[in-house]
């Protein structure tokens, strides 16, 4: 596909007057007694990539499923384009293992009413650039994990959706295939789609326009990566040696060095809280990984805040 054709797509969308924001507002989802999502607000802006981050059981798949229309909301609002204008890759591979690569894509195109000529042209470029072109006649079930994910992303964007929802497109995918997946994601955003990607890799989230941090069904932080990093409450110290006993619950190891979070109002040890203290270590600027760790620590240290029974939940919390 040429740049001119992509520009056409963006113009078509703009002309149809659908260049609007999608997302959820105060969304809650309950499965029986279990609250999977608790008042979550997510924005998806056209031409932008947004990330939803969190570990296993945080509620990412429920949120993305709701946004894509695959999971029903218990409460709150979901704004999404008509189903035919949504592209969705569920957290599995999102492709039919007993169809070939070409059959998967042809089927998807026909479901979305894209003519085979248009789809063929669009798909050829995407497959060639992501190393899938020579696999057209292979069964999807026989592809490597990385190739299957790439196919899933291509299949989800075959109809140039206005809203593209990708649930963990890079989890377990090797770094080279990950780069290909991200190229596809950038292409979709450059065509004007609002893209929402869930991931547990914070370096990926750090490159996006907006990030929502989920843990145990709750929204711990939201904003641009810079806003989230700037919004870390209290102070963060890098210390030499091991943390003291009272610091241990709010300390973690990063690149071989311990970091200690002092919540607002906490009394940091050492002579100079604002600068470097010989005993207390030095105060550092948090990056996104630190910011999310602090957000999780904060919710772990305030168990009363937790949604009862949200998700399996023990992945992050147990010690």
């Amino acid at each position, binding site marked *: 596909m040429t740049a001119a054709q992509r520009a056409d797509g963006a113009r078509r969308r703009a002309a149809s007057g659908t260049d609007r924001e999608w997302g959820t507002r105060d969304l809650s989802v309950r499965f029986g007694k279990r609250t999977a999502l608790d008042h979550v607000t997510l924005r998806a802006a056209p031409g932008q990539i947004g990330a939803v*981050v969190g570990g296993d059981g*945080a509620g990412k798949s429920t949120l993305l499923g709701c946004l894509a229309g695959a999971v029903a909301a218990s409460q709150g609002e979901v704004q999404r384009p008509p189903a035919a204008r949504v592209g969705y890759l569920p957290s599995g591979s999102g492709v039919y293992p007993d169809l070939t690569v070409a059959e998967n894509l042809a089927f998807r195109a026909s479901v979305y009413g894209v003519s085979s000529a248009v789809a063929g042209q669009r798909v050829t470029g995407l497959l060639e650039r992501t190393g899938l072109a020579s696999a057209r006649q292979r069964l999807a079930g026989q592809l490597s994990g990385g190739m299957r994910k790439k196919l899933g992303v291509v299949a989800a964007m075959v109809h140039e959706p206005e809203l593209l929802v990708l649930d963990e497109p890079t*989890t377990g995918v090797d*770094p080279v295939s990950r780069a290909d997946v991200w190229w596809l994601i950038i292409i979709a955003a450059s065509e004007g789609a609002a893209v929402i990607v869930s991931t547990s890799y*914070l370096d990926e989230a750090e490159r996006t326009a907006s990030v929502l941090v989920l843990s145990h069904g709750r929204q711990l932080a939201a904003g641009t990566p810079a806003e989230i990093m700037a919004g870390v409450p209290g102070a963060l110290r890098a210390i030499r040696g091991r943390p003291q006993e009272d610091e241990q619950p709010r300390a973690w190891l990063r690149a071989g060095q311990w970091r200690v979070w002092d919540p607002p109002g906490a009394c940091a040890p050492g002579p100079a809280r604002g600068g470097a203290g010989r005993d207390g270590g030095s105060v550092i600027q948090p990056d996104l990984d630190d910011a999310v760790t602090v957000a999780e620590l904060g919710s772990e240290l305030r168990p009363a805040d937790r949604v009862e029974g949200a998700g399996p939940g023990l992945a992050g919390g147990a010690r």
Partner: protein
Amino acid sequence: MTEVLAECVNATRRFGSFTAVDQVSMKIEAGEIVGLLGANGAGKTTLIRMLLGLLPVSEGEVRLFGRPPSRQTRHEIGYVPQGLGIYADLTVAENLQFSRGVYGGPRQDYDAPAALRPFASAVVRDLPLGLQRRAAFAEALAHRPKLLILDEPTSGMDPLARARLWETVQRTTDEGAAVLITTHYMEESQECGRLIVMAQGQVVAAGSAAEIVGQARVIVVQSDSWVSAFRALDAAGLPVALVGTTLRVPQASRADVANALAGLPCRLTEAPATLEERFFELVRAREPAR
């Protein structure tokens, strides 16, 4: 002198006409955390299987604790595969008991992590993934191995859980064991003292993250419309990544980038490459062209 726990000298493994591991030489010393990086098919798993003694070398040599790999050397290794390698239909306690039996005799001094104790009689498949992972770790560490091999241990974990796992890994090396770990998460390889990068069966770089990145730089492109700049760079066949609203172009000169942008109003600066960007440069140099 530090004890060498594992060593490969020109280790090669062929499957028919395919060479999965090609003349790999490396050492792992006591107390080290070594990260093994590479794309799928780079040869990481084959190398690990040779170290575990599951695959013989076709050529060259693998030595563990100064001896060729055998059932005896396997006793000194703890291994957590990607699929965790614990029995889903046994309880946590049964899994630990089984592995104690396999590794020869009880080690009463091993203390199962407190977080696992309440779940000792739970069937593994009923536990959340985080606890299953802890059980797999407890099992791999129970016989106090000298060498711990972890295949993608943190996939899907949140940063706090990941940091807690690294604490366990660090504690293991503090006690003198060595750890060989594969990860797809480049940021995380900063946790490793030393990295080995593999591509097409060969070691293409080794050293600390800083040593591997070296002087590699990228061109950073800022413009009012990242979309136009992206299209121009992409059409020129340059590898380009989007970070917020700026673009990063590795493996290209300022002139290449300026040419591709063909007069679009953009600001070009240079920045040090990240480990991931350097990794692609190393790996793509070995790849057949697409």
